[in-house]
């Protein structure tokens, strides 16, 4: 049973990668690399029974909150929301006038989105605020926040990490897409992140590490993340940017780029 479940989620991840690629090809711009790299994580989160989202639970009191703090990888998030049925039969186009699929997630254009993100180091703080609010209302809901390694070059990200640790926000789960890539090069070339896991631990977090492209391991780690802790939890996912389309894997030039005609055709041969 577990085996089938895993296989289903792997297939879902593949479907999501195809959706992302088609969406970006149609729009002509957007962030392809990490949208592909995080597809396995998103598959497990949205379709693997981890995130209790509103298509599954009508009452907000029973829902978890999801925040995409690294807003630029919204194509994968949109693909999940569409696949989960948030838009029904409505036809929408990424990055086109009036579309709920804005270039970066917009709470104003689509209320399924918890908060608008794009400038890095903000969604993480909003997630902290939501976790504070849920504690005040004695809610059992949790806050999942997806963040990237590049986002950890923003000082305000560390403000949020410190605040969450200080306030012992046990309902808060950060998911870190650690692919060592950002728009101008590797995270090592561009900046200096140090040992992210240790930095979190010293600020009062529980840290779980996982291969972010392995559905079975992700299922296990999120089960572990559900166990009680007095601390906020970081799920540090090592991923391959561009996963699933071999000719762009780990090539930072594809961080912020949509596929052109040729790339699109070649990509389809891997994704279909």
């Amino acid at each position: 049973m577990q085996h089938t479940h895993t296989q289903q989620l792997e297939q879902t991840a593949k479907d999501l990668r195809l959706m992302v690629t088609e969406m970006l090809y149609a729009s002509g711009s957007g962030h392809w690399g990490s949208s592909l790299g995080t597809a396995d994580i998103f598959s497990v989160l949205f379709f693997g029974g981890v995130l209790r989202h509103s298509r599954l639970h009508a009452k907000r009191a029973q829902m978890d909150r999801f925040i995409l703090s690294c807003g630029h990888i919204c194509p994968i998030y949109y693909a999940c929301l569409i696949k989960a049925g948030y838009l029904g039969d409505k036809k929408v186009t990424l990055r086109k006038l009036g579309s709920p699929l804005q270039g970066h997630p917009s709470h104003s254009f689509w209320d399924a989105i918890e908060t608008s993100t794009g400038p890095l180091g903000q969604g993480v703080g909003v997630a902290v605020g939501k976790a504070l609010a849920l504690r005040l209302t004695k809610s059992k809901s949790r806050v999942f926040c997806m963040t990237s390694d590049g986002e950890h070059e923003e000082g305000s990200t560390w403000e949020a990490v410190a605040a969450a640790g200080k306030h012992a926000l046990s309902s808060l789960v950060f998911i870190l897409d650690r692919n060592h890539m950002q728009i101008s090069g590797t995270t090592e070339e561009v900046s200096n992140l140090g040992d992210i896991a240790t930095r979190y631990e010293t600020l009062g977090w529980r840290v779980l590490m996982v291969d972010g492209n392995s559905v079975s391991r992700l299922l296990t780690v999120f089960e572990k993340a559900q166990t009680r802790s007095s601390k906020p939890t970081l799920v540090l996912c090592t991923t391959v940017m561009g996963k699933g389309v071999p000719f762009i894997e780990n090539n930072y030039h594809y961080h912020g780029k949509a596929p052109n005609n040729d790339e699109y055709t070649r990509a389809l041969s891997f994704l279909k």
Partner: protein
Amino acid sequence: MNLYLDTTLFTGPEKKSCRAGYGDELLELAKKNKKIVVLDADLAESLKVSEFRRKYPTRFFEMGVAEATMISAAAGLALEGFTPFTSSFAVFTPNQALSQIRVSVAYNRANVKIVASHAGITTGGDGATHQALEDIAIMRTLPGVTVLAPADYWQARKCVRAAAKILGPVYIRFGRSDVPSITTEKTPFQVGRAQVLQEGRDIAIFAHGEAVYRALLAAKELKKHGIRAAVINMHTIKPLDGKIIEVYAKKCKRFIVTEDHQMAGGLGSAIAEYTAQHCPVPISLVAVRDKFGESGDPEKLIKKYHIDTDDIIEAAHKMMDKK
């Protein structure tokens, strides 16, 4: 309309700070409104919210010297149905957290109340780094944000009370100092409706914050010279009270706008934008002229940077001479 102004206005009014008004009103509101929470970035004593912290420890969040996250966390609380008030200096919010204010608060239309003390050159001794002279210019360009600048203690309380009722982002700015009380507990207050504190038909002086008191003093002096100046307290900078501007453009035909803020982008700019489009009228601006401040006593700084009562009087004479 009876404004119930302080009767000792010109004979030695009580002096009290706006930040005390902020702290006092929060305590009052929090009794009934359980949704009110307060966030702080290590300035609880300065912002007069330490009593709130003592009385409502679970509704008070100390975020440390981390204004950006104080603001984004406030947005998160607001999006979950709370009414958060953030507390800092006007040089830190907006400036240190502008992107958070722009996206997490304004673009989200989150119900966050950003309260900023130590605005203006009257911050005094701390010097230029701590004298916010551009905060209004910044905040009024953000769509959907209400911008308030109370003139005294009681008005600060009413701004806080009104802000809690508005569903959406509100910015409240005031200075550090104890300022003369112009209004009283009974003085009516409505967001977006300016107050005519003194009638006059020769020239209309618009002001906000503690500059309102200097405008009143100037009007009193001008009267001796036969110039009847109206004094209008523009406690709401956004949404701007266009109606009153049109009424006084017709009536006085000359405006002075004075404020403890840069000339660029402040209330003066807001009024000029309005009059240029709807009711052109000559305007003289008595504000800080593209300069940073420096350390010093507030009174001396006001004089040196030409936003004093005498500067208003001089501007009025010049305008009257022009005809």
